[in-house]
Every structure is written in structure tokens, then in C-alpha cells.
């Protein structure tokens, strides 16, 4: 039975799609047959970050409306085996996401893959609710600032009360915290919340800390999931995150201020 994992946050712009792309890619790299679905109908982005925007023919809404079948709409990733992308429709809105339709598609996918990653839109409206409704696990993406943390708190409340697992009284959705865009120096100086501050407020297990890094923007623009940039901090952090999700016990990196070595101090960079 496949696992449905929602990547959600409440607030926009915190790194949901970046996380979805890298998380799904990382799972596929480790041999899991994985599909990542863009639930942001009308504001399609995942295809750009995955670098497959020019291969979109049919989309999620077409499949929901029986205008295409899943195989026609799924885009096979060219870099990593076992990975498919189900893009959102750009010309429709979130009302096109019906509970029955989403359930049917997830049901079909469950038979053929191991992991289904649902990239949630921002907000707490229909798109976000549909993305999380069928979830077994949730990656809650937060930035180290109060408004993002509060929105994540709100989403955690919705996961606990309005997901299918909550409605049916099943075991609750398993929650994981992803703290993205973290800069230890700024947390230390009090400009940002620290890892501990965020954990204290949200009180869920930390899956990974993704450091603030210019590589994230560069790879987004290039259409490459940052996890494939193995030499970058952010790529390594996502790689660790996937390993931890699969049960490896790895210490958290990039949470403390890195002392610059002599060479770095001499030649700059960072």
C-alpha cells in the first residue's frame, strides 16, 4: 500500500514546492516508485521546478474530469528513474478538485507506486484541504519567522481535525517538521527564530533543517530539484531529510554557525 505524503505549510513562499520536488526526487533516487502531484491548480509551479514544463500535455484536472487517463497525464522524470510528475492545470481553479476525483486518482496511483507526494497550495482553502485530506503523513514546511510558524500551527490543527484520518478516527496523520531557509547566524543574533523556538511552538518532530542558500533559487530557475545539487548545503540537507524519512538516524546539520576556515576567510565565499 502506497503512502500519501502531503507537503504543506499554510503560508506561501516558504518552500513547499521546492521541498516537494526534492523530497519526491530523493525518494525515487532511493528506489521508491514515486509520484509527485501539483495541487496548486491555477498557479502551476511544480513542473517548472522539476524542469518538465515543456512536456505537459494533460493535467490533474483532465484526469479528474475523465478527459485523459493517468498514463497520459503522468510525466516521467528524465533524470531519475521511478519518478513521475502529475502537473496541475493552469487554466482552471481549485473548485475543479473534487473529493471523489482526488480519491479515485490517488486510489489508482496507490496500486502502482510506493509514495505519493502531494504538493499543497498555500492557504487553507479547497486546494490545500484536498491536498491534505487523504494524507498518511505530512511534511509541514516552516520558515523561522513568527507568521510562518503560526500558519503551520494552523495547518497542523487542520491535519488533526479535517483530514480523512481524523474524520474516520484512524491513527492521526504523522507529522514532520521541515524548517526551511534557516540561517544560523541570523537565528543567533535574534533576527530569526531558532530551531528550538520553532520546535517549542509547534511541538512536532524535526525531519530536516534546510539552510538558506542561493543554490535553491538557482536550481529552481534551472528546473533542477535542489536535492540533485549534491555539493550544496541545501541539496545535502534535503538528502539527509529523505534518509531520515526512510528511517535513518542522522544528526541535523546546518543548524549551528559554521566557523569559516582559514582558506575561506582568505579567499571569501561561503
Amino acid at each position, binding site marked *: 500500500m502506497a503512502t500519501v505524503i502531503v507537503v504543506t505549510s499554510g503560508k506561501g513562499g516558504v518552500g513547499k514546492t521546492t521541498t516537494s520536488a526534492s523530497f519526491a526526487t530523493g525518494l525515487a533516487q532511493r528506489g521508491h516508485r514515486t509520484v509527485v502531484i501539483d495541487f496548486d491548480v491555477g498557479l502551476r509551479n511544480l513542473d517548472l521546478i522539476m524542469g518538465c514544463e515543456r512536456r505537459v500535455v494533460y493535467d490533474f484536472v483532465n484526469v479528474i474530469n475523465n478527459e485523459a487517463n493517468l498514463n497520459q497525464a503522468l510525466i516521467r522524470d528524465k533524470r531519475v528513474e521511478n519518478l513521475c510528475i502529475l502537473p496541475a492545470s493552469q487554466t482552471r481553479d481549485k473548485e475543479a478538485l473534487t473529493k471523489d476525483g482526488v480519491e479515485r486518482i490517488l486510489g489508482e496511483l496507490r496500486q502502482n507506486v510506493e509514495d505519493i507526494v502531494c504538493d499543497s497550495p498555500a492557504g487553507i482553502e479547497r486546494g490545500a484541504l484536498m491536498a491534505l485530506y487523504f494524507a498518511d503523513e505530512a511534511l509541514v514546511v516552516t520558515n523561522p519567522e513568527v507568521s510562518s510558524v503560526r500558519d503551520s500551527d494552523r495547518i497542523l*490543527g487542520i491535519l488533526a481535525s479535517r483530514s480523512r484520518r481524523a474524520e474516520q478516527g484512524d491513527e492521526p496523520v504523522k507529522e514532520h517538521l521541515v524548517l526551511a531557509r534557516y540561517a544560523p547566524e541570523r537565528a543567533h543574533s535574534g533576527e530569526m527564530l531558532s530551531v528550538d523556538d520553532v520546535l517549542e*511552538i509547534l511541538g512536532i518532530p524535526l525531519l530536516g533543517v534546510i539552510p538558506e542558500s542561493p543554490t535553491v533559487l538557482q536550481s529552481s530557475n534551472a528546473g533542477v530539484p535542489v536535492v540533485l545539487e549534491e555539493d550544496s548545503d541545501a541539496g545535502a540537507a534535503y538528502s539527509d531529510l529523505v534518509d531520515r524519512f526512510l528511517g535513518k538516524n542522522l544528526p541535523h546539520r546546518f543548524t549551528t554557525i559554521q566557523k569559516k576556515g582559514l582558506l575561506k576567510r582568505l579567499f571569501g565565499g561561503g
Partner: protein
Amino acid sequence: MLLRSPHLAGEDQPPFELKGSLFTLTVMHLYQLERSAIERYLAEKIKQAPSFFNNTPVVIDLENLAEPLKDGMDFGGLYTLLRGRGMVPVGVRNGSVELQTAAQLAGLPVLPDNRVTSTTRKPERAEPVRTRSRLVNHPVRSGQQLYAPEGDLIILGAVSAGAEVIADGNVHIYGVLRGRALAGVRGDIEARIFCQSLEAELISIAGRYRISEQLDPADRGKATQVYLVEDRLIIEHLTR
């Protein structure tokens, strides 16, 4: 000036009053009415505990007295015998109608049988009394609102900023209170708020409220209780 006479005062107060009361009495379970046997056995008993037979009232239980009256022994005789040995029979209970009638003729009243018999009905299993308290064993997240009507609200976990916990009774929070807590919302001025760490956006009891800005920084982060004294909210640290 007319002085009230003692006689009139006596008329105000009735000469007596009747009230029911319960006593513990010794019960003599009578098995036979043979005078000599009773006398002998009684003498033995008196030897064992002489002080017991000092105008001790007894009730005579006739339940096990199967035989009819004989040997010229009647209840009058029994009465005389017992009085002579320091016992005061006050009545009989149980036994046949015939025996009871004989006892009554001898001036011994029949007492109602109010013993708990061995065949008492099994007490019906009492319905467990449900209190109106509402227990929440998960954190209360931003945007959630929980209400305990007609009772207490008990939260095992934190109440996040932007969450609201409301009760007609008390609000207990075994965690950090960062959101809003309202106790006694239907006017119970005795209601209180308890929390392990006070970082609330708002606290209110029976409509009297204080917002975060009005909280004393000294109370922040402290285990506290909040209650009303003469319409004023009092925040008190809970000491261990």
C-alpha cells in the same frame, strides 16, 4: 405593666415532642421457652459479664421459636424472669401471629422486622456519573476553538497563539497557554484558569478580561492561576 406568667410561657412550649430515632439494642434470639433452661443459661452469662445485665434493654426475636407455648411458661413469666436478672424486654419481633399475640397480651409490643435479610437484592450497578468536564489530550492549534459547556475544559498540551479555549467552568492547561483562554463564559465568577506557562493573548473570567499587553511581564512564562476577586482579575503564581 403585664408580666408574662410562667404559666403562659408553659403554654407557648408544648409539654413534649415526638421524634423518631434509632437505637442499637441487644436482640435475644429465643430457641425454646423452657424456663429452667433459660434460667440456667442466663446465670452462666451473668457470671461471664455481670455488668452487661444492668437494666439492659433487649428485644426478643421469636423467629426460631418453633414450638408452641407450653410448660406454663408465657411471655408474662419470661418478662418477670428477665427483669429479675437485670434485663428490660422492650418488645418482640418475628415469630408466628400466635406468638406475637401472646407477647402483646403480656404487654410486649411487636416491633417491625427491619433486618437486612440475607436475600437482599443485589444493589443495581450504579450508572457511572459523567461529569461535564471535557478532556483534550492533544495540543490546541492556531485557529481551533474548543468549548466545554456546563463544565471544565482540561487540555493536556499547549494552546497555540490564535487558538481559543472556552469553558462554562474552569480552564486547565497542562502546557503553555499562548492563545486565548476564557473561563466562566456564562457568568460563573468562581471559575478559574490554570496554566503551566502564561503567555496568553487574552485571559477572561466571566467576561472580565485582560489582553496580552496588559499582562505583567513578571507573570509571563510562569505557572499561574487566574481568578476573580471583586470583579478584578488576579493572576497568582502556582508554587510547588
